């Protein structure tokens, strides 16, 4: 190959670079390595910007990966410099998301000190307590707040086995059916056998699909006791539904990808590593504003159902929260607020945040025990395709007013 002739040591280095990218979480398989090799044959290797741009367009395929690529490129291709080992070159001080062992191995291989490769991470564990046991029904109605570690394990089983599925919506795709619009394609095909006479009219109607769910959970200090269960709940849903999940306390973090591990414990571990403000303060309005601006357009397509889980303890401005909720509700098919405190005796939604939020939610439900989550599951399964025909909800549910709601 010509490029190999031009720079004999380039190929093995490119291979090593692809491995570094792979370890940092990018897709850098043989196909891409081949593409990179081919690409470099067409450019002037002496121009660093072209070299960098070419490798980026081959190895990166989503915006989020661009900073990782840039950091890896800086670390890997920077010219040897004595100052680098002291960490003073700005490009080299950027960190890559990889396990400490890997980072150490790479640092050794590249002659860097370890801190230049590693991201500062303090793995956090969810609080655990001693063991105990309750019968299933008792467990169903036990407040999450009072549960022991072993009980949460059982809850996890219960949630994973829960029978409900999310309600469906009509898509724009069509499938054959007895009733519905005429399928000209099939009908005409058939008609040819009968001299062009349309003897049978075939029909088709819209295919249905389950609605995507968007879960936005509060993991601030006041929700600490519920956080682990909520994450278990999110994981149970993520395993079988189309779920986008976010958590917030002081800021919003998307955890959809982190929840993708099949194994719950690994999923929870990656969530606790990826989220840096578990048990911080709460600014619900800010978090929802963040969601509205950065994520709503990306995840609220296809008639999504939005679920906010929070106790409504908000340190922010209630007017701000209201404005963001109104906006959010207009882009969602249905806005459901789950509040763990709603289960406690004599609870009234008097926190400023909750009072501000209530009129703008389609549903307001408890979420303090398995039975409550099962109620919620039934609600999800019964969601109608029309936004304005809401089923009556049992129990202590305060429905939002119709004000500000948009028709379908």
């Amino acid at each position, binding site marked *: 190959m010509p490029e190999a002739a031009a720079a004999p040591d380039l190929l093995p280095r490119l291979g090593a670079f692809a491995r570094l990218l792979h370890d940092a979480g990018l*897709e850098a398989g043989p*196909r*891409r390595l081949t*593409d990179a090799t*081919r*690409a470099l044959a*067409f*450019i002037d290797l002496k121009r660093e*910007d*072209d070299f960098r*741009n*070419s490798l*980026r*367009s*081959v190895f*990166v*395929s*989503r*915006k989020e990966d*661009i900073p990782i690529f840039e950091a890896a490129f800086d670390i890997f291709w920077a010219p040897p410099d004595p100052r680098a080992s002291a960490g003073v070159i700005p490009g080299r001080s950027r960190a890559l998301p990889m396990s400490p062992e890997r980072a150490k191995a790479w640092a050794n291989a590249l002659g860097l000190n370890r801190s230049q490769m590693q991201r500062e991470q303090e793995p956090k564990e969810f609080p655990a307590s001693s063991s105990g046991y309750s019968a299933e029904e008792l467990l169903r109605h036990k407040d999450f707040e009072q549960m022991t570690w072993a009980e949460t394990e059982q809850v996890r089983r219960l949630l994973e086995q829960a029978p409900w599925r999310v309600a469906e919506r009509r*898509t*724009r*795709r069509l499938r054959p059916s007895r009733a519905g619009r005429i399928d*000209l*394609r099939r*009908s*005409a095909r058939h*008609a*040819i*056998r*009968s*001299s*062009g006479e*349309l003897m049978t009219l075939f029909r088709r109607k819209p295919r249905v699909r389950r609605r995507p769910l968007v879960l936005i959970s509060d993991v601030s200090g006041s929700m600490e006791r519920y956080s682990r269960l909520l994450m278990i709940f999110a994981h149970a849903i993520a395993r079988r539904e189309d779920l986008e999940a976010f958590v917030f306390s002081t800021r919003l973090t998307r955890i959809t990808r982190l929840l993708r591990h099949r194994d719950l414990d690994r999923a929870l571990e990656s969530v606790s590593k990826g989220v840096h403000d578990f048990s911080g303060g709460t600014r619900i309005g800010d978090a929802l*504003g963040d969601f*509205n*601006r950065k994520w709503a*357009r*990306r*995840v609220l*397509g*296809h008639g999504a159902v939005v679920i906010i889980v929070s106790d409504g303890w908000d340190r922010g401005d209630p007017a701000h929260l209201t*404005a963001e909720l109104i*906006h959010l509700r207009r882009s969602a098919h249905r806005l459901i607020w789950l509040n763990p405190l709603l289960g406690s005796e004599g609870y009234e939604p008097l926190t400023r945040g909750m009072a501000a939020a209530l009129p703008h939610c389609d549903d307001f439900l408890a979420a303090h025990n398995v039975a409550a989550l099962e109620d919620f599951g039934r609600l999800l399964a019964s969601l109608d395709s029309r936004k304005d025909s809401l089923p009556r909800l049992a129990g202590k549910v305060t429905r939002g007013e119709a004000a500000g709601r948009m028709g379908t």
Partner: protein
Amino acid sequence: MSAPATIEEVERRLRERRYIGDRSLATSIFLALKLQKPLFIEGEAGVGKTEAAKVMADVLGARLIRLQCYEGIDLAHAVYEWNYPRQLLHIRLMGEGPNSQTDRRAAEREIFSSEFLLRRPLLDAIDNDDATPPVLLIDEIDRSDEEFEAFLLELLSDFQVSIPEIGTIKAKQVPFVVITSNRTREVHDALKRRCLYHWIDYPDLDKEVEIVRARAPEAADGLAREVAALVQGLRGMDLYKVPGVAETLDWARSIAALGATSIDASLVSATMGAALKYQEDLERVREQVPALVEKAQRA
């Protein structure tokens, strides 16, 4: 026109056509041409993704074939469809119609020939006799659904389409494919893996001024700079929908159409609908117009 031989040539030709892109975009385009791989362009709305494909067709002297994606787009809209009314009419015109087995076969062959085939953009792009391979723009793929993505994946790996009644049609020459996405949802990795990827960011002030001068020459030089600076200021604000370059151009054109060569607070308030598309955003910005204008005029 021959294909560009260097990155510089891509840059130069884009610029000649008043498309102001940076060198990294030129590099991605250049490599996509050389490696014959589709180019996947992502970026916020209104940063010039579609425009890049259009200009590329011009740069290459090729035909632009555009497929606008939407939810529910299927093969009948994207690849081909039989012209049923004509087919049925044709059968009627054949008289009493075919009665023997052989007649029926012959009739079927006739009816399912290319004469009755409605060629949609993807078939058009694959089955082409153009002197220069066409540019196929698959616009806003994030609006389509997973089924369509899966089909596209197949199409982009072997550039062939099979039509049961006719057979497999393979591209004689591979079109230059540009796929754009606004990221309203994440497109599947498998599809992206077949492509080279490029993220178009909002331009910095100087580049945006250059873009306004190139694409909205009716705006005076001073005005171009002021509007670009104004939009740069808006992008720093906490808005539901941040204005893109397309909005900057609209805004500059609107103000120029009013005969102004410089901005002031009342002019900006009156025309900011060109850049801001949400009521909440308009409200939020309205109070800060004087400050924004002052800042833009200093830039």
